[in-house]
């Protein structure tokens, strides 16, 4: 057996391999350059037509528009969530009539554009004015804000019902059978075993639905509700300054990104028992 008598002197690290200048490297740099140029260009454009009066005049109205958008989305998501419960029940029940009604409802609201539904409610219900006046609902339905809320609630209820149904049906059969084997009543099994697991599955689609509603709510500007988009359009029509749209874009992006990151945080927090 031989053994080392002297230690080898430490060698300098080998020279770093020269990174080849590949096509994708070139393309990546070029595209980043395009983004940089675009943001500098937009910044210069905004700085060029910037004026404190305009900011003082339209800044507060942008904020009030933001408030309108957020209230509209928040209320319709909550009301839609409540309305989605019977629809989801209808979709899953064995009763043929109920399940067909629920299916038709969901198919209609998911198959047609939100803007068409909004027009149908806002302009279309005007045809039924005498009847609506007779039942005292006309003062509600002549208000564009209420029409938007009504449409959004019906629309998001259809989507949320599908999310709920998909989540509940995604819980494996074994969970039902396990609960039955433990002698739990059906109700307890549903609320204590099925629903908590389903809600974890439904979490991400619910977040996507809220984001879709925030984005979709921009169309209320067309029926004269002054939400963020409406305020932007008003400001643009008064000033012909294109940067109004850019500010709206920034605000929408901030809203969506905050929500997306919040949802990612909630999801990692709630599923930490599933991590291995």
């Amino acid at each position, binding site marked *: 057996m031989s053994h080392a008598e002297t230690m080898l002197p430490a060698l300098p690290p080998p020279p770093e391999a020269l990174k080849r200048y*590949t096509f*994708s*490297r070139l*393309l*990546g*740099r070029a*595209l*980043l350059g*395009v*983004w940089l140029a675009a943001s500098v260009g937009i910044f210069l454009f905004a700085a060029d037509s910037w004026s404190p009066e305009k900011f003082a005049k339209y800044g507060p109205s942008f904020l009030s528009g933001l408030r309108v958008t957020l209230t509209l989305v928040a209320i319709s998501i909550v009301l839609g969530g409540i309305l989605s419960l019977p629809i989801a029940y209808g979709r899953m029940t064995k009763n043929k009539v109920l399940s067909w009604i629920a299916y038709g409802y969901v*198919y*209609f609201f998911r*198959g*047609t*554009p*939100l*803007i*068409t*539904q909004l*027009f*149908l409610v806002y*302009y*279309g*219900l*005007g*045809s*039924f004015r005498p009847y609506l006046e007779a039942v005292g609902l006309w003062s509600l339905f002549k208000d564009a804000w209420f029409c938007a809320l009504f449409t959004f609630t019906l629309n998001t209820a259809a989507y949320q019902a599908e999310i709920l149904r998909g989540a509940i049906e995604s819980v494996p059969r074994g969970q039902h059978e396990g609960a039955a084997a433990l002698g739990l009543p059906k109700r307890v099994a549903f609320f204590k075993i099925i629903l908590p697991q389903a809600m974890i599955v439904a979490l991400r689609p619910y977040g996507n639905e809220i984001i879709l509603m*925030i*984005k*979709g*709510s*921009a*169309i209320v*500007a*067309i029926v004269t509700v002054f939400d963020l*988009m409406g305020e*932007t*359009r008003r400001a*643009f029509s008064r000033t012909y300054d*294109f940067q109004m*749209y*850019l500010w*709206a*874009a920034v605000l*929408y*992006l901030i809203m*969506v*990104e905050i929500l997306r990151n919040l949802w990612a945080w909630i999801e990692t927090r709630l599923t930490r028992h599933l991590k291995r």
Partner: protein
Amino acid sequence: MQAAFAALSSIVSWFASMIDPMCGPIGIFRLFAQDTLLACGDTGWGDEIAYGFMITASLAICTLPIGLFFGFFIALAKQSEEKSLRLATNIYTTIFRGLPELLTLFIVYYGLQIVAQQVMAAIGYEGQVEINAFIAGMIALGVVFSAYCSEVLLSAFKAISRGQYEAGDALGLHRGKTMRLIILPQLVRIALPGLGNLWMALLKDTALVSVIGLPDILRQTGIAARVTKNAFEFFSIACLLFLILAMLSSLVFSALERWTKRSETVR
């Protein structure tokens, strides 16, 4: 040569008018709605609405290949080893998935107008530059579609195991050939349900283009509603037409899905 083209185009338009499902000789409006508001010709709104239907369908169909093409290359860029390429494409998807489609449309429509105006002014043309609403809609919807499409394709790419690429290498196939012969067929099969959802979303988003003046279903029915004061009927028809489009495309997609799964054994 020119005469031949003219003859060909007249034959094509005659054929199109024969099989027109709404106002053709055997169209539904012609057969069932001749004496109503939906009559074809000058007495009713049937032909206007049929034209809007064609515009909506052709806008969606024209946008699809553009979105798919760019979405595919963005998905490729997103899984590249190059950091800057990934960053650049992630910025793109973050922006265009986060913006409302309506706002994207306005930004493209008015922004392009400003840019085109300045470019034309630079080469010495002083006049009003109008951007075609169809083109603006195609660009805006295509951009949004490609952003979503790249995410769908990216997750489909991730579902294909490394072994498939290695098998391609082992067979001595060129990288492009591996992609075309081995990866793409599987990619289409995996991504088809997601792409179907995106197509439905695209179909619904085309309704937004009516806001910038494209005579699509919604705009034509809106004009009819304003003139005749029968708003509920006409907007119901608009909803019905969109539902018909949705049903047609779900038929096509289920057929496509069966076709892509033809190699799988029947269990």
